[in-house]
Protein backbone atom coordinates (compact mmCIF):
# COMPACT_ATOMS: atom_id res chain seq x y z
CA UNK A 1 0.00 0.00 0.00
CA UNK A 2 2.86 2.36 0.74
CA UNK A 3 4.07 2.49 -2.84
CA UNK A 4 0.73 3.32 -4.34
CA UNK A 5 -1.47 6.19 -5.23
CA UNK A 6 -4.78 5.33 -3.60
CA UNK A 7 -7.84 7.35 -4.47
CA UNK A 8 -11.16 6.27 -3.10
CA UNK A 9 -13.50 9.19 -2.92
CA UNK A 10 -16.88 10.55 -3.79
CA UNK A 11 -17.83 13.99 -5.00
CA UNK A 12 -21.44 15.14 -4.84
CA UNK A 13 -22.87 18.21 -6.50
CA UNK A 14 -25.67 19.74 -4.47
CA UNK A 15 -27.12 16.30 -3.77
CA UNK A 16 -27.70 15.61 -7.48
CA UNK A 17 -25.07 13.80 -9.52
CA UNK A 18 -22.21 12.17 -7.70
CA UNK A 19 -18.90 10.78 -8.85
CA UNK A 20 -17.25 7.81 -7.21
CA UNK A 21 -13.62 7.11 -7.87
CA UNK A 22 -11.74 4.01 -6.82
CA UNK A 23 -8.27 4.01 -8.35
CA UNK A 24 -4.87 2.58 -7.50
CA UNK A 25 -1.63 3.01 -9.32
CA UNK A 26 1.99 2.26 -8.54
CA UNK A 27 4.40 5.04 -7.61
CA UNK A 28 7.93 5.65 -8.87
CA UNK A 29 7.71 4.04 -12.28
CA UNK A 30 6.06 4.67 -15.60
CA UNK A 31 2.49 3.44 -15.48
CA UNK A 32 -0.28 5.06 -17.51
CA UNK A 33 -3.80 4.68 -16.20
CA UNK A 34 -6.36 5.93 -18.73
CA UNK A 35 -9.72 7.11 -17.43
CA UNK A 36 -12.02 6.37 -20.30
CA UNK A 37 -15.59 7.54 -20.66
CA UNK A 38 -17.98 9.82 -22.50
CA UNK A 39 -17.89 13.55 -21.83
CA UNK A 40 -19.71 14.42 -18.64
CA UNK A 41 -18.77 11.13 -17.00
CA UNK A 42 -16.77 12.97 -14.34
CA UNK A 43 -13.29 12.23 -15.67
CA UNK A 44 -12.01 15.78 -15.32
CA UNK A 45 -13.49 16.09 -11.83
CA UNK A 46 -11.48 13.05 -10.74
CA UNK A 47 -8.29 14.61 -12.10
CA UNK A 48 -9.05 17.92 -10.38
CA UNK A 49 -9.60 16.12 -7.08
CA UNK A 50 -6.27 14.32 -7.49
CA UNK A 51 -4.56 17.66 -8.20
CA UNK A 52 -6.15 19.31 -5.16
CA UNK A 53 -8.05 21.84 -7.27
CA UNK A 54 -11.32 20.42 -6.04
CA UNK A 55 -12.27 18.88 -2.74
CA UNK A 56 -14.13 15.57 -2.72
CA UNK A 57 -17.12 15.17 -0.46
CA UNK A 58 -16.10 11.88 1.13
CA UNK A 59 -13.22 9.44 1.09
CA UNK A 60 -9.45 9.46 0.99
CA UNK A 61 -6.57 10.19 -1.39
CA UNK A 62 -3.07 9.09 -0.46
CA UNK A 63 0.22 9.17 -2.30
CA UNK A 64 2.74 6.59 -1.10
CA UNK A 65 1.59 6.85 2.51
CA UNK A 66 1.28 10.65 2.38
CA UNK A 67 -2.32 11.74 2.92
CA UNK A 68 -3.52 14.23 0.32
CA UNK A 69 -7.14 14.20 1.28
CA UNK A 70 -9.06 12.68 4.13
CA UNK A 71 -12.65 13.73 4.65
CA UNK A 72 -12.84 12.39 8.19
CA UNK A 73 -9.59 13.91 9.39
CA UNK A 74 -10.33 17.13 7.48
CA UNK A 75 -7.06 16.96 5.54
CA UNK A 76 -6.77 18.64 2.14
CA UNK A 77 -3.21 19.16 0.90
CA UNK A 78 -3.09 22.23 -1.38
CA UNK A 79 -2.09 21.68 -5.03
CA UNK A 80 1.25 23.44 -4.48
CA UNK A 81 2.37 20.79 -1.99
CA UNK A 82 1.29 17.75 -4.01
CA UNK A 83 3.96 18.19 -6.70
CA UNK A 84 1.77 16.84 -9.47
CA UNK A 85 2.00 17.85 -13.11
CA UNK A 86 -1.40 18.85 -14.49
CA UNK A 87 -1.73 19.18 -18.25
CA UNK A 88 -4.86 21.18 -19.02
CA UNK A 89 -7.01 20.31 -22.00
CA UNK A 90 -6.27 23.60 -23.76
CA UNK A 91 -2.78 23.71 -22.16
CA UNK A 92 -3.36 26.97 -20.18
CA UNK A 93 -0.03 28.47 -21.25
CA UNK A 94 0.67 31.90 -19.76
CA UNK A 95 -0.01 34.32 -22.64
CA UNK A 96 2.18 37.07 -21.15
CA UNK A 97 5.29 34.90 -20.96
CA UNK A 98 7.59 33.53 -23.66
CA UNK A 99 8.04 29.81 -24.22
CA UNK A 100 11.16 29.89 -22.06
CA UNK A 101 9.32 31.93 -19.41
CA UNK A 102 6.48 29.41 -19.34
CA UNK A 103 8.82 26.46 -18.93
CA UNK A 104 10.95 28.15 -16.26
CA UNK A 105 7.84 29.36 -14.43
CA UNK A 106 7.86 26.60 -11.83
CA UNK A 107 11.63 26.89 -11.29
CA UNK A 108 11.61 30.38 -9.74
CA UNK A 109 13.22 29.13 -6.52
CA UNK A 110 15.98 27.10 -8.17
CA UNK A 111 19.32 28.82 -8.58
CA UNK A 112 20.05 30.36 -11.95
CA UNK A 113 22.47 27.78 -13.29
CA UNK A 114 20.28 24.86 -12.28
CA UNK A 115 17.21 26.52 -13.76
CA UNK A 116 18.89 27.22 -17.09
CA UNK A 117 20.25 23.69 -17.30
CA UNK A 118 16.82 22.18 -16.63
CA UNK A 119 15.13 24.45 -19.20
CA UNK A 120 17.76 23.54 -21.82
CA UNK A 121 17.27 19.86 -21.06
CA UNK A 122 13.50 20.17 -21.56
CA UNK A 123 13.92 22.13 -24.78
CA UNK A 124 16.01 19.25 -26.08
CA UNK A 125 13.70 16.52 -24.77
CA UNK A 126 10.63 18.08 -26.38
CA UNK A 127 12.40 19.42 -29.49
CA UNK A 128 11.55 23.05 -28.79
CA UNK A 129 14.93 24.59 -29.68
CA UNK A 130 14.55 27.89 -31.49
CA UNK A 131 11.17 28.70 -29.98
CA UNK A 132 12.56 30.18 -26.73
CA UNK A 133 11.38 33.74 -27.36
CA UNK A 134 8.05 33.01 -29.01
CA UNK A 135 4.77 33.73 -27.27
CA UNK A 136 2.16 30.97 -26.92
CA UNK A 137 -0.14 32.53 -29.56
CA UNK A 138 2.70 32.27 -32.09
CA UNK A 139 2.91 28.48 -31.76
CA UNK A 140 1.12 25.67 -33.57
CA UNK A 141 -1.16 23.36 -31.60
CA UNK A 142 1.46 20.61 -31.47
CA UNK A 143 4.13 23.05 -30.27
CA UNK A 144 1.81 24.42 -27.59
CA UNK A 145 1.20 20.90 -26.37
CA UNK A 146 4.95 20.23 -26.10
CA UNK A 147 5.54 23.52 -24.27
CA UNK A 148 2.78 22.65 -21.81
CA UNK A 149 4.33 19.22 -21.25
CA UNK A 150 7.77 20.74 -20.73
CA UNK A 151 6.34 23.22 -18.23
CA UNK A 152 4.65 20.38 -16.33
CA UNK A 153 7.81 18.23 -16.32
CA UNK A 154 10.08 21.11 -15.28
CA UNK A 155 9.74 20.61 -11.57
CA UNK A 156 9.85 16.80 -11.78
CA UNK A 157 6.28 15.94 -10.76
CA UNK A 158 5.59 12.80 -8.74
CA UNK A 159 2.33 12.16 -10.56
CA UNK A 160 1.24 13.30 -14.03
CA UNK A 161 -2.37 14.21 -14.70
CA UNK A 162 -3.30 14.67 -18.36
CA UNK A 163 -6.72 16.03 -19.30
CA UNK A 164 -7.56 15.01 -22.87
CA UNK A 165 -3.96 15.70 -23.90
CA UNK A 166 -4.57 15.38 -27.65
CA UNK A 167 -8.11 16.64 -28.11
CA UNK A 168 -7.07 20.21 -28.94
CA UNK A 169 -5.00 19.04 -31.93
CA UNK A 170 -6.08 18.52 -35.54
CA UNK A 171 -6.22 14.91 -36.72
CA UNK A 172 -2.84 14.58 -38.54
CA UNK A 173 -0.95 16.30 -35.70
CA UNK A 174 -2.77 14.19 -33.16
CA UNK A 175 -1.56 10.97 -34.72
CA UNK A 176 2.06 12.12 -34.66
CA UNK A 177 1.93 13.60 -31.15
CA UNK A 178 0.24 10.46 -29.82
CA UNK A 179 3.30 8.40 -30.64
CA UNK A 180 5.66 11.00 -29.18
CA UNK A 181 3.62 11.30 -26.01
CA UNK A 182 3.66 7.55 -25.49
CA UNK A 183 7.44 7.46 -25.85
CA UNK A 184 7.81 10.39 -23.48
CA UNK A 185 5.58 8.87 -20.81
CA UNK A 186 7.46 5.58 -21.02
CA UNK A 187 10.71 7.50 -20.47
CA UNK A 188 9.57 9.31 -17.32
CA UNK A 189 9.57 7.23 -14.17
CA UNK A 190 6.29 8.80 -13.12
CA UNK A 191 2.81 7.32 -12.82
CA UNK A 192 0.27 9.02 -15.05
CA UNK A 193 -3.49 9.38 -14.99
CA UNK A 194 -4.77 10.35 -18.42
CA UNK A 195 -8.35 11.27 -19.23
CA UNK A 196 -9.80 10.65 -22.69
CA UNK A 197 -12.99 9.83 -24.56
CA UNK A 198 -11.08 8.66 -27.65
CA UNK A 199 -10.54 4.90 -27.66
CA UNK A 200 -7.58 5.12 -30.05
CA UNK A 201 -5.87 7.44 -27.60
CA UNK A 202 -6.75 5.13 -24.73
CA UNK A 203 -5.28 2.08 -26.48
CA UNK A 204 -2.17 3.92 -27.59
CA UNK A 205 -1.27 5.37 -24.22
CA UNK A 206 -2.66 3.02 -21.60
CA UNK A 207 -0.98 0.36 -19.50
CA UNK A 208 -4.31 0.09 -17.74
CA UNK A 209 -7.78 1.40 -18.57
CA UNK A 210 -10.51 2.37 -16.13
CA UNK A 211 -13.91 2.74 -17.80
CA UNK A 212 -16.16 5.39 -16.29
CA UNK A 213 -19.90 5.50 -16.69
CA UNK A 214 -22.74 6.96 -14.68
CA UNK A 215 -20.25 8.59 -12.35
CA UNK A 216 -18.42 5.44 -11.27
CA UNK A 217 -15.57 3.18 -12.30
CA UNK A 218 -17.19 0.24 -14.08
CA UNK A 219 -14.17 -1.81 -15.07
CA UNK A 220 -10.40 -1.67 -14.67
CA UNK A 221 -8.03 -3.80 -16.70
CA UNK A 222 -5.47 -3.99 -19.47
CA UNK A 223 -6.55 -2.21 -22.68
CA UNK A 224 -7.30 -5.37 -24.71
CA UNK A 225 -9.13 -6.89 -21.78
CA UNK A 226 -11.39 -3.90 -21.27
CA UNK A 227 -12.07 -3.35 -24.95
CA UNK A 228 -12.51 -6.99 -25.98
CA UNK A 229 -14.11 -8.36 -22.88
CA UNK A 230 -16.22 -5.55 -21.43
CA UNK A 231 -17.59 -6.59 -18.06
CA UNK A 232 -21.16 -5.78 -19.03
CA UNK A 233 -23.35 -4.16 -21.67
CA UNK A 234 -22.82 -0.71 -20.16
CA UNK A 235 -19.05 -0.94 -20.56
CA UNK A 236 -19.47 -2.38 -24.06
CA UNK A 237 -21.64 0.58 -25.04
CA UNK A 238 -19.08 3.04 -23.65
CA UNK A 239 -16.02 1.54 -25.30
CA UNK A 240 -17.93 1.14 -28.59
CA UNK A 241 -15.42 -1.12 -30.27
CA UNK A 242 -16.13 -4.80 -29.87
CA UNK A 243 -12.98 -6.58 -30.91
CA UNK A 244 -9.53 -5.54 -29.71
CA UNK A 245 -6.76 -8.15 -30.00
CA UNK A 246 -3.00 -7.87 -29.88
CA UNK A 247 -1.22 -8.87 -33.09
CA UNK A 248 2.23 -8.88 -34.72
CA UNK A 249 3.11 -7.77 -38.23
CA UNK A 250 4.59 -10.73 -40.14
CA UNK A 251 4.48 -9.42 -43.69
CA UNK A 252 4.12 -6.11 -45.55
CA UNK A 253 2.96 -6.04 -49.16
CA UNK A 254 1.55 -3.30 -51.43
CA UNK A 255 -0.14 -0.97 -48.94
CA UNK A 256 -1.15 -3.83 -46.71
CA UNK A 257 0.28 -5.57 -43.68
CA UNK A 258 -0.40 -9.11 -42.54
CA UNK A 259 -0.65 -9.68 -38.81
CA UNK A 260 -0.71 -12.87 -36.82
CA UNK A 261 -3.53 -12.78 -34.32
CA UNK A 262 -3.78 -15.83 -32.15
CA UNK A 263 -3.92 -18.68 -34.67
CA UNK A 264 -5.36 -16.52 -37.44
CA UNK A 265 -3.82 -14.14 -39.95
CA UNK A 266 -5.47 -10.84 -40.83
CA UNK A 267 -4.63 -8.22 -43.44
CA UNK A 268 -4.91 -4.58 -42.58
CA UNK A 269 -4.13 -1.31 -44.33
CA UNK A 270 -0.42 -0.57 -43.81
CA UNK A 271 -0.15 1.24 -40.47
CA UNK A 272 1.42 4.70 -40.29
CA UNK A 273 3.34 3.83 -37.12
CA UNK A 274 6.54 1.82 -37.32
CA UNK A 275 7.07 -1.22 -35.14
CA UNK A 276 5.67 -4.70 -35.18
CA UNK A 277 3.20 -4.85 -32.33
CA UNK A 278 -0.31 -3.48 -32.70
CA UNK A 279 -3.79 -3.77 -31.34
CA UNK A 280 -6.24 -4.78 -34.05
CA UNK A 281 -9.56 -3.08 -33.52
CA UNK A 282 -12.63 -4.25 -35.40
CA UNK A 283 -16.11 -2.87 -35.00
CA UNK A 284 -18.82 -5.53 -34.94
CA UNK A 285 -20.81 -3.95 -37.79
CA UNK A 286 -17.79 -4.36 -40.11
CA UNK A 287 -17.83 -8.15 -39.77
CA UNK A 288 -20.05 -10.23 -42.08
CA UNK A 289 -20.90 -13.88 -41.47
CA UNK A 290 -21.65 -16.72 -43.88
CA UNK A 291 -22.50 -20.31 -43.13
CA UNK A 292 -19.84 -22.90 -43.86
CA UNK A 293 -16.14 -22.97 -44.66
CA UNK A 294 -14.36 -20.17 -46.62
CA UNK A 295 -14.55 -20.48 -50.44
CA UNK A 296 -10.77 -20.55 -50.84
CA UNK A 297 -8.42 -20.84 -47.92
CA UNK A 298 -6.05 -18.30 -49.46
CA UNK A 299 -8.62 -15.51 -49.69
CA UNK A 300 -7.73 -12.58 -47.53
CA UNK A 301 -9.57 -11.98 -44.28
CA UNK A 302 -11.96 -14.91 -44.70
CA UNK A 303 -11.75 -16.53 -41.30
CA UNK A 304 -13.15 -19.94 -40.54
CA UNK A 305 -14.67 -20.21 -37.09
CA UNK A 306 -17.41 -21.41 -34.85
CA UNK A 307 -20.21 -19.45 -33.23
CA UNK A 308 -19.68 -19.26 -29.49
CA UNK A 309 -22.61 -17.12 -28.42
CA UNK A 310 -25.56 -15.25 -29.91
CA UNK A 311 -26.74 -12.31 -27.82
CA UNK A 312 -29.84 -10.38 -28.91
CA UNK A 313 -29.54 -6.58 -28.46
CA UNK A 314 -32.62 -4.77 -29.71
CA UNK A 315 -33.12 -5.18 -33.45
CA UNK A 316 -29.71 -6.81 -33.86
CA UNK A 317 -27.76 -9.67 -32.38
CA UNK A 318 -24.16 -9.74 -31.29
CA UNK A 319 -22.49 -12.94 -32.39
CA UNK A 320 -19.23 -14.00 -30.79
CA UNK A 321 -17.18 -16.17 -33.16
CA UNK A 322 -14.09 -18.18 -32.28
CA UNK A 323 -11.81 -17.95 -35.31
CA UNK A 324 -8.44 -18.32 -33.64
CA UNK A 325 -9.30 -15.29 -31.55
CA UNK A 326 -12.63 -14.00 -30.33
CA UNK A 327 -14.34 -11.84 -32.96
CA UNK A 328 -17.69 -10.12 -32.46
CA UNK A 329 -20.08 -9.58 -35.38
CA UNK A 330 -23.31 -7.64 -35.54
CA UNK A 331 -26.15 -9.18 -37.57
CA UNK A 332 -29.84 -8.36 -37.81
CA UNK A 333 -32.24 -10.65 -35.96
CA UNK A 334 -33.67 -11.71 -39.31
CA UNK A 335 -30.22 -12.71 -40.61
CA UNK A 336 -29.46 -14.56 -37.37
CA UNK A 337 -32.60 -16.63 -37.91
CA UNK A 338 -31.96 -17.19 -41.65
CA UNK A 339 -28.42 -18.31 -40.96
CA UNK A 340 -29.65 -20.45 -38.06
CA UNK A 341 -26.81 -19.17 -35.91
CA UNK A 342 -26.40 -20.97 -32.65
CA UNK A 343 -23.38 -21.98 -30.56
CA UNK A 344 -21.31 -24.48 -32.51
CA UNK A 345 -22.44 -23.37 -36.01
CA UNK A 346 -19.43 -23.31 -38.39
CA UNK A 347 -19.23 -19.90 -40.10
CA UNK A 348 -16.89 -17.77 -42.20
CA UNK A 349 -16.28 -14.27 -40.92
CA UNK A 350 -15.19 -11.63 -43.41
CA UNK A 351 -13.56 -8.30 -42.56
CA UNK A 352 -12.34 -5.74 -45.09
CA UNK A 353 -8.70 -4.83 -44.65
CA UNK A 354 -9.73 -1.18 -44.37
CA UNK A 355 -12.01 -2.05 -41.44
CA UNK A 356 -9.12 -3.37 -39.37
CA UNK A 357 -7.87 -0.43 -37.37
CA UNK A 358 -4.31 -0.69 -36.08
CA UNK A 359 -3.16 1.04 -32.90
CA UNK A 360 0.52 0.71 -31.98
CA UNK A 361 1.17 -0.89 -28.60
Amino acid sequence: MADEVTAEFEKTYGGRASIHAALHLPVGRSHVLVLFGASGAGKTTILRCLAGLERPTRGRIAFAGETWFDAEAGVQTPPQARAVGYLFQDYALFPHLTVAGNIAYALQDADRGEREARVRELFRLLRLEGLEDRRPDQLSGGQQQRVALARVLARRPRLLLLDEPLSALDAPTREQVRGELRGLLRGQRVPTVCVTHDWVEALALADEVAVLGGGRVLQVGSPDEVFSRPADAEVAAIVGVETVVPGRVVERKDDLAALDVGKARLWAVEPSGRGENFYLCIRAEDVTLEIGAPPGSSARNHLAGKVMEVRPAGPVSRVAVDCGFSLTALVTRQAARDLTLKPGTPVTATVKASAVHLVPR
Partner: protein
Amino acid sequence: MNWTAILLTLKLAALTAVILLVVGMPIAYWLTYSRRRWKFLAESVVALPLVLPPTVLGFYVLVAIGPKSPIGHWYEAIVGHPLVFTFEGLLLASVLYSLPFAVQPFTAAFGAVDPKLIEASWTLGVSKLATFFRVTIPLSLAGVVTGVVLSFAHTMGEFGVVLMVGGNIEGVTRTVSIDIYDEVQALNYAAAGQTALFLLVVSFLILSVVYALNRNLWAVWPMK
Protein backbone atom coordinates in the same frame (compact mmCIF):
# COMPACT_ATOMS: atom_id res chain seq x y z
CA MET B 1 -4.55 80.57 -11.75
CA ASN B 2 -4.16 79.48 -8.18
CA TRP B 3 -1.08 77.27 -8.36
CA THR B 4 -1.23 76.46 -4.66
CA ALA B 5 -4.68 74.94 -5.14
CA ILE B 6 -3.59 73.11 -8.28
CA LEU B 7 -0.49 71.58 -6.67
CA LEU B 8 -2.48 70.64 -3.58
CA THR B 9 -5.14 68.97 -5.74
CA LEU B 10 -2.51 67.03 -7.73
CA LYS B 11 -0.90 65.87 -4.48
CA LEU B 12 -4.25 64.79 -3.05
CA ALA B 13 -5.23 62.97 -6.25
CA ALA B 14 -1.85 61.22 -6.56
CA LEU B 15 -1.85 60.05 -2.92
CA THR B 16 -5.45 58.90 -3.19
CA ALA B 17 -4.63 56.89 -6.32
CA VAL B 18 -1.60 55.26 -4.67
CA ILE B 19 -3.56 54.36 -1.53
CA LEU B 20 -6.40 52.96 -3.62
CA LEU B 21 -3.93 50.87 -5.60
CA VAL B 22 -2.75 49.26 -2.37
CA VAL B 23 -6.12 49.05 -0.61
CA GLY B 24 -8.30 48.42 -3.66
CA MET B 25 -6.41 45.32 -4.89
CA PRO B 26 -7.15 43.07 -1.91
CA ILE B 27 -10.78 44.26 -1.88
CA ALA B 28 -11.11 43.56 -5.60
CA TYR B 29 -9.40 40.18 -5.17
CA TRP B 30 -11.85 39.23 -2.47
CA LEU B 31 -14.84 40.46 -4.50
CA THR B 32 -13.63 38.47 -7.52
CA TYR B 33 -12.95 35.13 -5.87
CA SER B 34 -15.08 34.99 -2.72
CA ARG B 35 -18.05 32.66 -2.84
CA ARG B 36 -19.71 34.09 0.26
CA ARG B 37 -23.43 34.48 -0.03
CA TRP B 38 -23.41 38.03 1.33
CA LYS B 39 -20.79 39.20 -1.17
CA PHE B 40 -23.43 41.34 -2.89
CA LEU B 41 -23.67 43.45 0.27
CA ALA B 42 -19.96 44.22 0.14
CA GLU B 43 -20.29 45.06 -3.57
CA SER B 44 -23.11 47.48 -2.73
CA VAL B 45 -21.05 49.20 -0.04
CA VAL B 46 -18.11 49.65 -2.44
CA ALA B 47 -20.45 51.11 -5.08
CA LEU B 48 -22.26 53.49 -2.67
CA PRO B 49 -20.11 56.57 -3.42
CA LEU B 50 -21.29 56.35 -7.04
CA VAL B 51 -24.88 57.20 -6.10
CA LEU B 52 -24.62 58.92 -2.73
CA PRO B 53 -24.59 62.76 -2.78
CA PRO B 54 -21.04 63.81 -1.85
CA THR B 55 -22.48 65.90 0.95
CA VAL B 56 -23.97 62.79 2.56
CA LEU B 57 -20.69 60.92 2.35
CA GLY B 58 -18.87 64.03 3.57
CA PHE B 59 -21.26 64.41 6.47
CA TYR B 60 -20.67 60.87 7.72
CA VAL B 61 -16.91 61.16 7.31
CA LEU B 62 -17.02 64.45 9.20
CA VAL B 63 -18.91 62.81 12.06
CA ALA B 64 -16.65 59.76 11.98
CA ILE B 65 -13.38 61.69 12.19
CA GLY B 66 -14.56 64.46 14.50
CA PRO B 67 -12.73 64.80 17.85
CA LYS B 68 -15.69 63.20 19.67
CA SER B 69 -15.66 60.02 17.58
CA PRO B 70 -13.45 57.05 18.52
CA ILE B 71 -11.42 57.42 15.30
CA GLY B 72 -10.89 61.16 15.74
CA HIS B 73 -10.08 60.74 19.40
CA TRP B 74 -7.61 57.93 18.76
CA TYR B 75 -5.95 59.86 15.90
CA GLU B 76 -5.53 62.96 18.06
CA ALA B 77 -4.06 60.90 20.91
CA ILE B 78 -1.39 59.44 18.61
CA VAL B 79 -0.59 62.30 16.21
CA GLY B 80 -1.27 65.20 18.51
CA HIS B 81 -3.72 67.20 16.39
CA PRO B 82 -7.27 66.55 15.25
CA LEU B 83 -7.98 64.73 11.98
CA VAL B 84 -10.86 66.89 10.86
CA PHE B 85 -10.07 69.93 8.62
CA THR B 86 -6.60 68.59 7.86
CA PHE B 87 -5.05 67.24 4.67
CA GLU B 88 -5.02 63.73 6.16
CA GLY B 89 -8.72 63.91 6.90
CA LEU B 90 -9.37 65.07 3.36
CA LEU B 91 -7.23 62.22 2.02
CA LEU B 92 -9.25 59.66 3.98
CA ALA B 93 -12.51 61.08 2.62
CA SER B 94 -11.11 61.08 -0.94
CA VAL B 95 -10.08 57.44 -0.67
CA LEU B 96 -13.61 56.47 0.37
CA TYR B 97 -15.18 58.69 -2.26
CA SER B 98 -13.10 57.25 -5.13
CA LEU B 99 -13.15 53.64 -3.92
CA PRO B 100 -15.50 52.30 -6.63
CA PHE B 101 -13.49 54.00 -9.35
CA ALA B 102 -10.51 51.83 -8.41
CA VAL B 103 -12.17 48.65 -7.16
CA GLN B 104 -14.64 48.16 -10.01
CA PRO B 105 -12.07 48.20 -12.86
CA PHE B 106 -9.75 46.00 -10.76
CA THR B 107 -12.56 43.49 -10.14
CA ALA B 108 -13.58 43.43 -13.79
CA ALA B 109 -9.97 42.85 -14.87
CA PHE B 110 -9.28 40.11 -12.30
CA GLY B 111 -12.52 38.38 -13.26
CA ALA B 112 -11.47 38.34 -16.91
CA VAL B 113 -8.31 36.33 -16.19
CA ASP B 114 -8.84 32.70 -17.20
CA PRO B 115 -9.14 30.75 -13.91
CA LYS B 116 -7.30 27.85 -15.54
CA LEU B 117 -4.14 29.96 -15.74
CA ILE B 118 -4.33 30.57 -12.01
CA GLU B 119 -4.92 26.89 -11.30
CA ALA B 120 -2.06 26.01 -13.64
CA SER B 121 0.20 28.23 -11.56
CA TRP B 122 -0.94 26.58 -8.32
CA THR B 123 -0.30 23.09 -9.66
CA LEU B 124 3.17 24.29 -10.70
CA GLY B 125 3.86 24.85 -7.01
CA VAL B 126 3.51 28.64 -6.94
CA SER B 127 1.70 30.06 -3.89
CA LYS B 128 -1.57 31.96 -4.17
CA LEU B 129 0.11 35.28 -3.39
CA ALA B 130 2.94 34.76 -5.87
CA THR B 131 0.41 33.63 -8.49
CA PHE B 132 -1.45 36.88 -7.96
CA PHE B 133 1.68 38.89 -8.72
CA ARG B 134 3.02 36.67 -11.52
CA VAL B 135 -0.19 35.82 -13.39
CA THR B 136 -3.23 37.83 -12.29
CA ILE B 137 -1.64 41.30 -12.20
CA PRO B 138 0.30 41.07 -15.49
CA LEU B 139 -2.85 39.83 -17.24
CA SER B 140 -5.06 42.56 -15.77
CA LEU B 141 -2.61 45.43 -16.13
CA ALA B 142 -4.95 47.49 -18.31
CA GLY B 143 -7.70 47.27 -15.69
CA VAL B 144 -5.31 48.12 -12.86
CA VAL B 145 -4.00 51.19 -14.71
CA THR B 146 -7.56 52.21 -15.55
CA GLY B 147 -8.59 52.01 -11.90
CA VAL B 148 -5.63 54.08 -10.72
CA VAL B 149 -6.07 56.73 -13.41
CA LEU B 150 -9.83 57.00 -12.89
CA SER B 151 -9.50 57.40 -9.13
CA PHE B 152 -6.86 60.08 -9.74
CA ALA B 153 -9.15 61.95 -12.16
CA HIS B 154 -12.18 61.55 -9.95
CA THR B 155 -10.33 62.96 -6.93
CA MET B 156 -9.16 65.92 -9.01
CA GLY B 157 -12.77 66.92 -9.53
CA GLU B 158 -14.32 66.29 -6.12
CA PHE B 159 -16.19 69.15 -4.51
CA GLY B 160 -18.92 68.27 -2.07
CA VAL B 161 -16.83 65.96 0.07
CA VAL B 162 -13.98 68.49 0.29
CA LEU B 163 -16.40 71.19 1.26
CA MET B 164 -17.84 69.07 4.06
CA VAL B 165 -14.64 67.50 5.42
CA GLY B 166 -11.80 69.80 4.47
CA GLY B 167 -13.22 73.17 5.11
CA ASN B 168 -11.48 75.77 2.97
CA ILE B 169 -7.95 76.29 4.21
CA GLU B 170 -5.49 77.76 1.72
CA GLY B 171 -2.62 75.31 1.01
CA VAL B 172 -4.12 72.60 3.22
CA THR B 173 -7.59 71.72 2.00
CA ARG B 174 -8.51 74.30 -0.66
CA THR B 175 -8.61 72.22 -3.84
CA VAL B 176 -9.14 73.42 -7.41
CA SER B 177 -12.89 72.89 -7.44
CA ILE B 178 -13.30 74.88 -4.19
CA ASP B 179 -11.04 77.60 -5.60
CA ILE B 180 -13.25 77.91 -8.69
CA TYR B 181 -16.32 78.14 -6.50
CA ASP B 182 -14.67 80.87 -4.39
CA GLU B 183 -13.66 82.86 -7.47
CA VAL B 184 -17.20 82.71 -8.86
CA GLN B 185 -18.61 83.79 -5.51
CA ALA B 186 -16.21 86.75 -5.63
CA LEU B 187 -17.31 87.43 -9.25
CA ASN B 188 -13.77 86.79 -10.56
CA TYR B 189 -15.02 85.03 -13.70
CA ALA B 190 -11.69 85.33 -15.52
CA ALA B 191 -9.73 83.51 -12.80
CA ALA B 192 -12.50 80.90 -12.43
CA GLY B 193 -12.54 80.36 -16.18
CA GLN B 194 -8.77 79.79 -16.37
CA THR B 195 -8.79 77.20 -13.61
CA ALA B 196 -11.92 75.53 -14.99
CA LEU B 197 -10.32 75.23 -18.42
CA PHE B 198 -7.21 73.73 -16.83
CA LEU B 199 -9.30 71.09 -15.04
CA LEU B 200 -11.24 70.34 -18.24
CA VAL B 201 -8.07 69.80 -20.29
CA VAL B 202 -6.39 67.65 -17.65
CA SER B 203 -9.50 65.47 -17.20
CA PHE B 204 -9.84 65.01 -20.96
CA LEU B 205 -6.19 63.99 -21.30
CA ILE B 206 -6.49 61.47 -18.49
CA LEU B 207 -9.61 59.88 -19.92
CA SER B 208 -7.97 59.71 -23.37
CA VAL B 209 -5.13 57.74 -21.84
CA VAL B 210 -7.58 55.34 -20.17
CA TYR B 211 -9.51 54.63 -23.36
CA ALA B 212 -6.34 54.30 -25.42
CA LEU B 213 -4.95 51.82 -22.88
CA ASN B 214 -8.07 49.71 -22.98
CA ARG B 215 -8.06 49.58 -26.75
CA ASN B 216 -4.59 48.06 -26.87
CA LEU B 217 -2.42 48.02 -23.80
CA TRP B 218 0.62 46.70 -25.62
CA ALA B 219 0.59 49.61 -28.06
CA VAL B 220 1.59 51.99 -25.26
CA TRP B 221 3.28 49.62 -22.82
CA PRO B 222 6.98 49.02 -23.45
CA MET B 223 6.81 45.24 -23.38
CA LYS B 224 8.01 42.95 -26.11
